């Protein structure tokens, strides 16, 4: 059985890692360089680095900051925030990214996913979908760090994104994000039931059981979390140990 990846996520605003609740930035958590190094040392399988206001402000993420954060990180880093040109992707890769996550701009211009996948390979392109539940069985995709509704059905958008060449999906539940009440299993299940690429899930981790549940019941390939790691409620080795005891393969 394959290894499930545990991925700490750094939400960046300015020079800081911040703690988002319902994707609104509230508290400064700390220095991204220190946090990234701590998670790498603890055995993070990958690191997610998201500039959460770049799209909203219509600017690029801070590539110099990214370069300094990834300097001594030797696991894959997925970077998102304001990516809207091939040139942006090149800059991110040169600054230490291995993959880029694209949300807002892909919704405005879906063919950008194809163009990016053609240029860098599908393995480099993560389609990030931020979904907000509207009614039973219907989630809407949001943009600009969870602020703007797009009118798109998140599930249909995921299907479209795969056809366009996305190599992985990162699914964020806006409703669960920052609540610690567990991942949105209905949403995740619905998506993992049809996709042929790895699915990274995010939003709602509260305890070790929430990791186990979203893997066993949700079918997640990779589980991302922020607050529980930032505030040391859980540790990466602790979560991995718990998963291993419960029959999930992880890298140790």
């Amino acid at each position, binding site marked *: 059985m*394959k290894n499930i*990846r545990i991925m700490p996520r750094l939400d960046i605003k300015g020079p800081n890692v911040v703690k988002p609740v319902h994707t609104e930035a509230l508290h400064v958590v700390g220095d991204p360089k220190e946090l990234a190094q701590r998670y790498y040392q603890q055995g993070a399988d990958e690191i997610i680095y998201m500039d959460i206001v770049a799209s909203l402000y219509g600017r690029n993420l801070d590539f110099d900051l990214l370069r300094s954060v990834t*300097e001594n990180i*030797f*696991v894959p880093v997925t970077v998102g925030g304001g990516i809207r040109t091939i040139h942006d992707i090149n800059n991110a890769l040169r600054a230490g990214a291995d993959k880029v996550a694209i949300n807002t701009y892909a919704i405005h211009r879906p063919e950008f996913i194809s163009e990016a996948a053609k240029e*860098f390979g*599908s393995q480099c392109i993560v389609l990030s979908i931020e979904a907000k539940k509207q009614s039973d069985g219907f989630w809407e995709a949001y943009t600009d760090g969870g602020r703007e509704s797009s009118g798109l059905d998140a599930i249909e958008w995921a299907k479209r994104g795969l056809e366009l060449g996305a*190599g*992985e999906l990162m699914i964020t539940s806006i409703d669960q994000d920052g609540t610690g009440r567990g991942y949105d299993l209905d949403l995740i299940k619905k998506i993992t039931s049809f996709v042929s690429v790895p699915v990274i899930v995010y939003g709602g981790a509260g305890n070790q059981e929430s990791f186990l549940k979203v893997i066993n019941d949700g079918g997640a390939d990779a589980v991302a979390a922020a607050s529980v790691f930032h505030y040391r409620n859980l540790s990466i080795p602790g979560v991995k140990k718990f998963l291993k005891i419960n029959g999930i393969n992880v*890298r140790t």
Partner: protein
Amino acid sequence: MNKTKITIVDYGVGNLSSLKKAFKFFGMEADISEDPQSVERADAVVLPGVGSYEAGMRGLKVRGLVDAVRGAAEKNRPMLGICLGAQLLLSQGLEFGVFNGLDIISGKVVRFPDLENNEKIPQIGWNGVCPLKDQTWQKTIFDSLSENFNAYFVHSYIFNLDNKEDMLGLTKYGGYEFCSAFKKGNIYGCQFHPEKSGPAGLKIIKNFIDLI
């Protein structure tokens, strides 16, 4: 002063900065270069790369790098192919057609067969690397790594070597065991990314530096 020269071959595909960083971690300044002369003069050559087989070979050809890489291999200079870069060292690639490779290692690059449990292709993530039965990794780039060490993979295609004695590591994915690393003299290839494989990967880079 004779300074050790490591050349990371830039043939237009993939992200080379993380590889350079990995060498820098051990105090080695590796040159990223697309100049055939830089490859010819190098004490050690790294052939990285992500992308399709055809694009990779085309990238080497248009820069006149094919003979330079082959020449370094003939002199048995320490060489490390990574992912697509390793695949290009084989005789042929069967990705989107049939394409001739550098033919330094005898074998073909083929797609994963259908896997158990509908396991996803590409394989993206961490997986174990084991030696072959009765094989020792001593004095190779895997020296002092634990059997079944974890490494980071991103690929849909795999090495299918003609000679078992060239194999250095095996990995199982979706019930299918494939060759994930090879060695012929000082020529090494890894399907996974040592520069992305945490402390184990860094150890491989260190062992490679020690070959020089």
